């Protein structure tokens, strides 16, 4: 293992990461000094984080000062994993230093949840009794009545001069910190390494491999011959889509503050799902806003390569079977959930409604939110009929298209699996048939096919394993199942105790840490993390 090389590149990377940290710093300076609001101050804490980041960067640079600049496959894999863990640790500091989240585990969970675009939050208002002492919160789901979780809230409320609570929960969190949360999702959506590929000095083929590690899906097509250019094109497109959404949100909902629009867009296009309100997108109770959010959840789950076909005016290339599979899965998902939901109350957060439009609106929003792994909510789906919840769970595993920001197993893989199964079945009665596996015109070789099957097996296996781990850690099985699919698919919504009205604060420290691990595993699509456990990976000789 060439540790010096790794060290040098990580050092470089962290310098750029500290530049990214300047964005929330600027915002915090504005909120602290130029805005007369009573949110907790945060500029000093962001400054401290930047300082810390630079110091760590210098340490890495120091150890990598003699590096020669070669990056092999093994180092590339390790580099990506290290970058993800180290970024999440540094990203956690603003949460911890500002005392938004007082416990390091909570801060780390929040940062990891952000970077992996999961959007699962531990932010939950603290509860006090009449004497002003903090008391534990008791949560039990109506579906699992015999299990009650007792835990303490995490967010200190903002009190007025008379010690009365003015704001609590997410509303009491310092604005720049919430912005940082959304920005993390935006960075992690396309891939933190991919963004830095555009600025990091040439890594040669190593860079190409880094790109392939972070871009999701079984078949990675590059948009431009050289990886540096591909990365920069992707980010330009990503930024463009984000700005487009901000403008669109402001147009359809003129009452929405620009700060809300920016944060919402950052979490939306990255299919992250962090919200700046306790009631998520349901807070706005505004149908056009929801439709815009819904469209951008889908846009974030479409293979970004397709947009370049649109930009180059090659519309006919969009009609790939994969794209059709994705769109039809979305339509079928909406129809199924709407069908099973019809005739039942919708449980919107902010109002009660049951018109046909509201039914489709809620069903579409929740099914797409689950499938695209975004995790925004507008209604308390935990009270919906069981079939709708089951379909949401399946949609979480289904995921969006390859080469997008969403999680899940991805429709592309299902398409390959489907083709393989059909081929195998036909081979039973017609063993001499020679067939080639193709996705539209691109040939899928045997090894890609086997990789897709292996991925499917690994995803299911780890899903089962993660559920068992949660259950053994005193979480009820129904919540465990929701949790494991929420974490592994980077969805951010779960059921029962972790349902839409609750947070993930009830989890034990062990469960939170193990969740962080599942999240990064799901984001990097399992293999990169799993192979670190192979002894041969570390052996330098033999």
């Amino acid at each position, binding site marked *: 293992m060439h540790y010096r090389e790794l060290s040098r590149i990580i050092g470089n990377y962290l310098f750029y990461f500290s530049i990214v940290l300047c964005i929330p710093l600027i915002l915090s300076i504005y909120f602290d000094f130029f805005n007369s609001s009573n949110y907790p101050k945060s500029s000093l804490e962001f400054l401290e984080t930047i300082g810390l980041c630079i110091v760590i960067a210098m340490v890495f640079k120091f150890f990598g000062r003699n590096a020669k600049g070669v990056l092999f496959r093994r180092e590339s894999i390790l580099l990506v994993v290290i970058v993800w863990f180290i970024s999440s640790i540094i990203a956690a500091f603003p949460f911890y230093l500002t005392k938004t989240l007082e416990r390091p585990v909570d801060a780390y969970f929040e940062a990891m949840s952000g970077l992996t675009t999961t959007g699962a939050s531990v932010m939950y208002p603290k509860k006090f009794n009449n004497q002003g002492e903090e008391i534990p919160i008791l949560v039990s789901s109506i579906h699992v009545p015999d299990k009650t979780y007792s835990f303490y809230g995490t967010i200190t409320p903002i009190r007025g001069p008379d010690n009365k609570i003015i704001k609590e929960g997410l509303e009491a969190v310092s604005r720049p910190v919430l912005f940082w949360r959304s920005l993390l999702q935006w960075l992690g959506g396309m891939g933190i390494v991919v963004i830095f590929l555009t600025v990091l000095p040439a890594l*040669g083929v190593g*860079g190409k491999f880094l790109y392939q590690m972070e871009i999701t899906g079984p078949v990675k097509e*590059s948009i431009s011959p*050289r990886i540096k*250019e591909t990365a920069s094109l992707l980010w330009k497109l990503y930024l463009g889509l984000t700005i487009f959404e901000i403008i669109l949100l402001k147009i359809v909902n003129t009452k929405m503050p620009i700060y809300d629009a920016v944060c919402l867009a950052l979490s939306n296009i990255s299919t992250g799902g962090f919200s700046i309100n306790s009631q998520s997108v349901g807070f706005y109770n505004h149908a056009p806003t929801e439709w815009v959010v819904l469209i951008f959840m889908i846009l974030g789950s479409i293979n970004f390569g397709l947009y370049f076909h649109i930009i180059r005016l*090659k519309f006919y290339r969009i009609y790939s079977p994969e794209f059709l599979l994705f769109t039809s899965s979305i339509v079928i998902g909406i129809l199924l959930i709407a069908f099973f939901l019809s005739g039942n109350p919708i449980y919107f957060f902010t109002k009660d409604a049951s018109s046909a439009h509201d039914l489709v609106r809620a069903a579409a929003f929740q099914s797409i939110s689950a499938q695209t792994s975004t995790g925004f909510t507008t209604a308390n789906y935990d009270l919906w009929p069981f079939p709708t919840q089951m379909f949401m769970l399946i949609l979480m595993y289904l995921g969006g298209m390859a080469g997008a920001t969403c999680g899940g197993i991805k429709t592309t893989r299902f398409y390959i699996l489907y083709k393989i199964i059909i081929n195998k079945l036909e081979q039973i009665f017609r063993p001499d048939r020679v067939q080639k596996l193709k996705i539209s015109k691109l040939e899928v070789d045997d090894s890609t096919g086997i990789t897709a099957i292996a991925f499917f097996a690994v995803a299911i296996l780890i899903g089962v394993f993660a559920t068992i781990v949660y259950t053994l850690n005193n979480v009820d099985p129904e919540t465990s199942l929701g949790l494991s699919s929420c974490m592994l698919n980077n969805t951010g919504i779960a059921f029962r105790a972790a349902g839409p009205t609750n947070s993930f604060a009830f989890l034990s420290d062990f469960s939170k840490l193990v969740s962080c691990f599942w999240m990064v595993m799901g984001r990097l699509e399992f293999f990169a993390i799993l192979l670190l456990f192979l002894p041969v990976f570390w052996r330098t000789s033999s």
Partner: protein
Amino acid sequence: MNIVILGAGALGAFVASTLSKEEHNVILIDQDAKTLSRVSRELDVATVNSTGSNWRILDDLLENKPDYFIALTGCDETNLVTCNMAKNLGFPNTICRIKEVGYLLRERLDFGRLFFVDYFIAPEIIAANDIFKLLLTPKGESIESFAHGAIQMRTIKLPKSWEKTNVPIHSLGLPEEMIIGAIRREKEDKTTEIIFPHGEDRLMFGDEITVFGDPNTMRNVPEYFGLAPLYLDSVVIAGGSTIALHLAKILESQDIAVKIIEKDENRCKRLADNLTKSIILNHDASEYSFLLSENIQESDVFISCTRYDETNIFLTSLGKKTGCKKVISAISNINLKDTLEKIDIIPSISEKLNISNRILSLIHKEKVLSVTSLFGEEARVIEMKVSEDSKFIGIPLKDLSGKIPKELIIAVIENKGKVMIGKGDRVISPNDTVIIVSSPKNIKELQNIF
């Protein structure tokens, strides 16, 4: 720059890696998906799995606004036809790799115009000429080849027996297609001067002169100036590659005995078809006893030019062990050069390096294609392209005197594959390649002149 390369074989992959390291956008086309996936794992290039003759793919690639189309497959015909299609579809420049020297000679057909090829590169021919150069140099003469071997340059020292010291050069009766490019004269006070001769100059004994001409005329140079002919009787080549074939052809034309040892029987038959005088041996050259039985130690030079560096080094080491005085190995990895020189094996740049250097200079739109030093650093031989806005286009060379620096001679003009000696009534056309002998101080000015 956006470059499309057809063929991901040894040459294609090598050129692609050189270009992508220079931060060019390379798209590599090949029909073998396995080769492509291996190449794309190792290089930062995009790959397209298709045959070269699939014009739809070429048409699609146009959307990347490519600057060059380079056909590098091992099949001349595929390269020519694909270049033709590419150019007609809208690729601005085409470069075609060929193996057959016939496409370079434009006696009856101008293949460049016929197949819309802007630049022909025959890497094997260049490599064969490089080896040929090495065969002769240490014997007191230096030889360089230009224009795929169509022009040869030799430097010789006039012997004491040279008598025509009073005859001006134009009356010497030199062959038509031969020109003297430079004279290095040692004066009485031991200082040397470089003369760029113009018709009226004279040759003295003891002068070192540089002569340009086509290889056939050049064969008689030593004879003409009263020197002993080249001392080179027999050469053994291990490996019947295309380089070996071209090298053997050059050597045959110089009446040097050639033996080629090649493992593959079919290849041997092909070589025997093409080479009438050479001895083709169908045997494994790595067998030591066979080398001894063929009296390798008796031959003047042992050359290994298979496609693989490892094999070449291995074979030349064996050749060295038999006691052969001079061994030459073709290499494509430039890092090996010093190591080989240390163990007394003469390295020669392989076709891979040759072609990538050539393509790089084409892509950089360098006017200067190659520079060779003469007499140490006292004069330079420069191969350069004439731009379209050069001031000297269409003016006979004899009328140029006074307009170009004095210490400069236009030795050779290559016009679309036709090679001419720079005699007084010849004219320069745009996009010609000229070979110039000049004093080093003129080099900057040259860029502006042509």
